[in-house]
């Protein structure tokens, strides 16, 4: 059970949205991290067969994405801007999407109960979609995505806009679902990845910057994260010179967190990197190496929105 992406390139006209990406995603939670415009949504849309690729190969559990009917049967998708017909009842909406997924009446009936229970919405079956809160709607989004019991679940920025409690609940739900399937989670919120994913990939401006475990990524930032207590004026000067990932104020003093190749100044002390430090360090490293070609520009998710 794997998603294999081999030298994948996607162009929109002369704009390169994905540049020669190669990636293997196995069972469990897989995080796709990147800034807005990095190419995450484009990649997910190609895997869900909503977008055609320009070059390369993508197979989902051994099936090439060109065989869209077969791939769609195996994939559950929660798009970034998830919504449903607002006037429909939750149960009816799921039933409708179940029909579109080719499920027979009996299976639909059983699975709807099951997935609503899984996402803790059992008592909302007769509520109208428009009556649900943002968090409930997101959970309904997961319910519809796993309704046909897919081998692969793809969720695009699922926690955006959720309050902390809902976000934790949502992450736990995804972890639960990842026990017996591939769950591919795309986000620009590092925290989501850190607490749920073992393996991740980092995309930036269409290029793959990193693929590996969270641990390895954090290890790579060791000895490059420093803290120091400095006054406010000094902090401003440090920000000019170094990449600062944290700034906590105590009166005139601030506790500053810096990413640097070497100890930046005498008072700085090495500290344990967080996932966010490691991610930022990786981005910084790539920029410093000057690997980017300015012509490679992601064209933005909305550009590829299905008409």
């Amino acid at each position: 059970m794997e998603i294999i992406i081999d030298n994948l390139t996607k162009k929109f006209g002369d704009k390169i949205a994905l540049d020669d990406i190669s990636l293997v995603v196995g069972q469990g939670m897989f995080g796709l991290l990147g800034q807005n415009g990095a190419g995450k949504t484009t990649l997910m849309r190609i895997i869900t067969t909503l977008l055609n690729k320009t070059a390369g190969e993508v197979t989902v559990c051994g099936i090439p994405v060109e065989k869209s009917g077969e791939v769609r049967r195996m994939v559950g998708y929660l798009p970034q801007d998830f919504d449903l017909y607002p006037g429909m009842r939750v149960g009816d909406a799921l039933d409708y999407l179940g029909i579109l997924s080719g499920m027979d009446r009996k299976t639909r009936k059983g699975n709807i109960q099951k997935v609503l229970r899984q996402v803790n919405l059992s008592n909302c079956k007769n509520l109208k979609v428009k009556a649900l809160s943002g968090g409930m709607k997101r959970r309904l989004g997961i319910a519809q995505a796993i309704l046909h019991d897919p081998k692969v679940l793809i969720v695009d920025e699922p926690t955006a806009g959720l309050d902390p409690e809902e976000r934790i609940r949502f992450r736990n739900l995804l972890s639960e679902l990842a026990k017996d399937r591939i769950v591919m989670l795309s986000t620009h919120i590092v925290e989501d990845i850190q607490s749920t994913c073992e393996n991740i990939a980092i995309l930036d401006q269409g290029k793959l910057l990193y693929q590996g475990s969270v641990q390895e990524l954090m290890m790579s930032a060791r000895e490059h994260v420093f803290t120091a207590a400095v006054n406010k004026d000094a902090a401003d000067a440090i920000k000019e010179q170094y990449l600062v990932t944290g700034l906590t104020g105590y009166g005139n003093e601030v506790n500053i967190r810096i990413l640097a190749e070497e100890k930046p100044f005498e008072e700085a002390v090495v500290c344990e990197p967080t996932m966010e430090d490691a991610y930022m360090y990786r981005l910084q490293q790539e920029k410093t190496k000057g690997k980017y070609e300015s012509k490679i520009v992601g064209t933005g998710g909305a550009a590829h929105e299905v008409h």
Partner: protein
Amino acid sequence: MKFIDLVWQECRMIGKSILYFAFLFVLLLFFSSQYAADRASDLENIASGNRVTINQYGEKSINPFIEPKETDGFYGYKMAEVPEQVMPRVAAALYRECRDNKYASYPYRFIKWVKLGKDKQERAEEIFQEITGYTISEYNGIVKKKYQMQQGEISENGDENITVDNTRFYEIPISETLTYQQFKERMLELEEMIGPESSYSDLERYGREEISYEDAVKEYDGLVQKDKVSGAYARLFCDYMGIVLAIFPAFVAVAYVRRDKRAGIRELVYSRQIPSIKLIGARYLALVLMMFLPVLVLCIPATQEIYSGVKLLGLPIDVLAFFKYSITWLLPTLMFTVSLSYFLTELTQTAIGILVQGALWFLTLIRTPLVGEYEWSFFLRHNSIGGYAAYKAGVNEILINRIAYVIVSIGLVLMTSALLARKRKGRWYGKRRSVKVPLDRQ
């Protein structure tokens, strides 16, 4: 089974939309105000049981449901250009319009009021004087006097100059020296000044002559034997319902097709396993079913009404006539309207389907006669009760026309499916659109 479930779900969703209720309202409105109004007087005739009845103006009229007998002596009227009838009636129409300088014309089947310039208006007044011998102001005096007499304000001898005869308001006596040829020349002149389809075009409609016994038998035979009464009314029913089905379903279809975009669930739907042909097929079928079912429901009271009317006379009736005509005449129209709107909406994701359909509807309406010329109109006009002979003469045209529109509709549905299949694979993205969008959503 899954397909049926899908169609059922789609039907439920259509049934909850406001535009669908608006469509039902318009359909009912046309049924009650147009079709019902036309058949009301006939049903009175049926109830009377007499072949010849006298109307409110004291004129004979024919009850078409009673078999004519050779001994009747009167068999009804048909339109005819009889100068003695045409000229006084046209003169009355000219008086009314010339007096107010407000002339009606119907260049595109819709009324257009024309106001003449000073010279043309003076010429129109001259024409009135030439054909009647009165000036407009003189005739105003006559009308005023007649009104006062009717009100009992003056007696007939109250005026020394003008003799008020039995001239009715809708007929004005014609100058004795005027020939019909001269009259027609002046009518042509008026038509040139006012425009086409004015009160001075098609003079035949101002006159009538009695029909023969043989023609009366033919008419009766067509209505009762061939059409079994209900067939004649079914064609009128289809005429009015066809006008509705040729345009209003476009509103429902366009709104329905766009609802995925409005609700923001296209990705969700597109990423499902269902083949595009099934998805489009189910939605199309649901739209057609939901808009055709009310028509079939209206067939029930329409049939019931005719049935209860003619059963008093013991006439045969085809109880399925309304259903048969609806399926063969109306269903292809509905199929075409929905498929074209669906295709254009899927293609452009705009409401352009309504505009295109509206233009087609309007052009067809203004270019097609009320009865006959069925050739390529996407909705058939037969705005007449009876007219079996005209229908019979065009039955092959109708057949070809209807089959052609069904084929075109299916073709459009297939094209829509192919279009959707491409979109679902992301193969329908305009370059301009992809460049325009900001870089904040990947």
